[in-house]
């Protein structure tokens, strides 16, 4: 099959219409039914597939960097009859398990990024619902700060997956409903079993929406609300965004070369090598003005975008790859200097958003169903932000040799939190709080032994052991059950407390992916298999 590309831009959108007026950005969902990402289904009634969501992700990303003056984002429907029918059922029914999982993960990452960006950039997001809004459509609404529903006797919000499809409601499970909106669990229980959902007053009374308004006054009421939200955020009106150009990538057989990193696939071994190249500090800008002038060519931003593209490509187009070996090439001083520019210019929206993007991309890596080993060798430059990238890995091997060093900096102390909201340092050292405490503010360079003592790496190995140990670990890893590893890694990576976001992915992985392979959903008589077909599902009644 043609590999999926995650790159797009507004001139190519098929499924969304965007409008900017002053500080208000409007997004209209208007799915072109005849252009699904893969053949075999029509995207009727504003239902969506990965292709639709790739465009939405692009919209959110461009909002981050191209439209910093925005105060309010309004999401509504460009379809005359519905808001959104949710994920396309025929697409789900006809796709492989892996595809469904990746689809759900990506759509949730998009919704999480929307939420994260809105919170960080202090943008109020408002979803204005006209017409039925079901399943993943309601999940999109739930990702907004406010949900407005027209009270016309027809428009409704619903999570009909249980009664209609036999799968878990919402692309993100039910976490947003009960943990974010805090709908009472017994009411949520009723809500999720009523296929047609709630309309008007009941939706409001039970907390499924924030406001309702009759049709004749709906857009006026929403307009007044938008005006108020904008007036509270007028200070940023003068900001000028940068433009995000296409990400240049050279693809040679098994190699994917970006300006800041290279991914080499060794298909037979089921591994990939991802090597980050840090440029010399001499070429770096020294003020935020210079960074703005560089725009998307500013190395940290370029690196974040390229790394993300590489991760998405790995997930969707290279499912056979089970292990990624992460390396870095460059000078540790240069890396620390690049980090310092970011630290010095914090408070400038562009720099803040660049750091947020790094954070988002590192989290994406951590949520990938693939093993990651970081290898710290001669010529590596794992300091600060890059050291944090190494911390996302399942193991870190460092070569015990003169000159091989790592260094912490403020990037390791809360600027790049994990999905679960805590630092990777706190997560790693959950059983050694004194050690974690003692590391705070310790930005000294550390050789392999010191790094091992400080709990920053898995093992320090001398030259004699390093090569052998790494080779054997890699071969062993590549031979283990990929399903077991995915489960094992997801359990180990997120040690410590949870938050809304980690619950979304945790619950989704555990439950939705399980339900997706159960006969009651995807067996020959399963509800998902038979949806839209003349036969009706037959369930296996035993609870598992």
């Amino acid at each position: 099959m043609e590999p999926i590309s995650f790159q797009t831009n507004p001139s190519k959108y098929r499924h969304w219409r965007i409008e900017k007026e002053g500080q208000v950005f409007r997004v209209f969902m208007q799915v072109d039914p005849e252009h699904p990402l893969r053949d075999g289904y029509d995207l009727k009634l504003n239902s969506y597939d990965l292709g639709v969501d790739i465009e939405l992700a692009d919209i959110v990303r461009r909002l981050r960097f191209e439209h910093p003056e925005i105060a309010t984002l309004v999401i509504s429907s460009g379809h005359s009859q519905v808001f959104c029918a949710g994920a396309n059922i025929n697409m789900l029914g006809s796709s492989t398990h892996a595809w469904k999982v990746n689809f759900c993960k990506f759509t949730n990452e998009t919704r999480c990024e929307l939420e994260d960006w809105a919170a960080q950039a202090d943008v109020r997001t408002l979803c204005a619902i006209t017409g039925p809004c079901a399943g993943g459509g309601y999940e999109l609404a739930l990702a907004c700060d406010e949900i407005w529903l027209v009270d016309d006797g027809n428009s409704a919000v619903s999570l009909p997956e249980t009664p209609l499809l036999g799968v878990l409601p919402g692309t993100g499970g039910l976490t947003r409903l009960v943990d974010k909106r805090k709908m009472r669990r017994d009411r949520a229980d009723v809500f999720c079993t009523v296929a047609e959902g709630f309309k008007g007053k009941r939706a409001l009374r039970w907390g499924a929406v924030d406001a309702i308004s009759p049709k004749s006054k709906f857009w006026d009421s929403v307009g007044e609300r938008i005006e108020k939200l904008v007036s509270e955020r007028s200070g940023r009106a003068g900001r000028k965004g940068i433009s995000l150009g296409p990400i240049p990538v050279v693809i040679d057989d098994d190699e994917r070369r970006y300006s800041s990193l290279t991914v080499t696939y060794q298909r037979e071994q089921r591994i990939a090598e991802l090597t980050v190249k840090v440029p010399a500090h001499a070429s770096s800008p020294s003020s935020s003005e210079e960074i703005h002038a560089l725009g998307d060519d500013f190395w940290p931003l370029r690196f974040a975008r390229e790394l993300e593209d590489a991760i998405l490509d790995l997930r969707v187009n290279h499912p056979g790859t089970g292990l990624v070996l992460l390396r870095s090439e460059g000078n540790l001083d240069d890396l620390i200097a690049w980090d310092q520019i970011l630290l010095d210019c914090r408070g400038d929206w562009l720099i803040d958003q660049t750091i947020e993007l790094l954070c988002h991309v590192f989290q994406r890596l951590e949520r990938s169903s693939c093993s990651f080993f970081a290898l710290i060798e001669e010529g590596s430059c794992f300091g600060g932000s890059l050291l944090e990238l190494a911390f996302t890995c399942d193991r870190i091997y460092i070569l015990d040799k003169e000159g091989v060093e790592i260094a912490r900096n403020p990037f390791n102390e809360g600027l790049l939190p994990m999905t679960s909201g805590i630092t990777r340092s706190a997560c790693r050292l959950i059983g050694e709080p004194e050690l974690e405490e003692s590391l705070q503010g310790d930005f000294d360079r550390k050789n392999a032994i010191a790094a091992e003592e400080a709990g920053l790496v898995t093992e320090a190995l001398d030259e004699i052991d390093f090569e052998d140990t790494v080779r054997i670990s890699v071969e062993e890893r590549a031979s283990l059950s990929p399903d077991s590893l995915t489960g094992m890694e997801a359990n180990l990576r997120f040690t410590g407390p949870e938050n809304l976001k980690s619950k979304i992915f945790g619950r989704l992985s555990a439950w939705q992916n399980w339900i997706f392979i159960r006969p009651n959903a995807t067996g020959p008589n399963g509800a998902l298999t038979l949806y839209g077909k003349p036969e009706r599902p037959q369930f296996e009644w035993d609870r598992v």
Partner: protein
Amino acid sequence: MGNVDLNARIPNNVGLADDKRLLKALEHWLPLYMEWWNDMGPAGFQTKDIYLRTAISVEAGGWANFDYVQMPDYRWGIFLTPPGEDRTIGFGDHVGKPVWQEIPGEYRGNLRRIIVTQADTEPASVEQQRFLGSTAPSLYDMRNLFQVNVEEGRHLWAMVYLLFRFFGKDGRDEAEELLSRRSGDEDKPRILNAFNQPCDHWLSFFSFTHFTDRDGKFQLASLAESGFEPMARTCDFMLTEEVHHLFVGETGLDRIIRRSAELTMETDGDPKKVGGIPLDMIQRSINYWFSYSLDLFGGEISSNAANFFGEGLKGRFKEKNRYEDHVMKEGVKIVPNVRDNRIHDEEVPYRNAMNEVLRDEYIADCDRALRKWNRTLEKTGIENRLTLPSRRFKRHQGIYADNDFNLEGELISKEEMEANVTEWLLNDEDNHYLTSIMKQVVEPGKMANWIAPPARGINSQPIDFEYVRL
């Protein structure tokens, strides 16, 4: 209302006297219904004596009692056709099992949806027609209008009975909603769009009762096949009344067509000179109401339709008598669909095409009436003939709604549609003219100039009988 003997007030064969829950629900609902009837029922005629037919029992002759009645005193009864001999589910996945007397929990949502959608149409049409009494072309027609209105009111009762009896609190909420929606209201419109269209003159009234009420005939008939027996029997009884509504529409249009042909010939082709209705205007009314009514059958390719059939809730027209295979798990129906800007035949699993199967029956019935009208035209000696537009023409719902088609069903551009729309559909100018010629005629036996008299009166009364005492 506690003092009123509801059992006496509401003729019924559902054991109302002994059903405390139902009585309680009706006690609450009846005043709300009367308030709605007074607000939204026929305007200006509530205290007049009208020669109406009232159903007081389901026995032969019991459902057609004629007498003078003031509409608010009309006895809105609750009747179910007596059960037939075969009391097994007639189609779908449960075929052959005993019919349901209570609602199966798993189908509660779908049944409620079916019932509420059907119920919503009943008060809607009363609202659409509420001012027509003041422009009635004769006392005979005025009486027919009111007969249709009170029976639509009774049909609402029949559906509300199902909601009260079988759906508990949800049912009571839905019943109140039925009285709070309003035809054409921007904020609280009726559920189906044809029931939000203005019906402000008698050409629209007859077209509506012919085309739109005819959808009701096919919907009720397919619900009368249902495995949920109370609904089947309710709908079956409603059909006996629906026949008269269709008669009013079909003969009303026939009388206009006859008169228009005569006036066209008398005036050398311009019946407007004498306050008549041009035949092309009638054609536009047919196009308008036929296309809106086709929407009522639902999507051409529909998983709901497949579910309703598979679950044994909604069958085909005359399912028991006309079909041999009542399961229809296999098989396809060819449905022309648009892709890449051209029409091509698509194979749809038969069950998913159930709406289209019912629409076929409806179109065939409309065709039959059309042939009749054309015979009327032929008899007058005029050469003009009327036609039915393609089922793809000017649809607002379903797979054809996103494209434009001409009357023959060929794909055309948006521009071509816009250029022709006033030629093809009843337009503002038509409506303005039609409203201007419609003046109330109250002398018994007299007819407005734009319509021919009926062949005979109601209940063997003469045409000049005083059907309404003004």
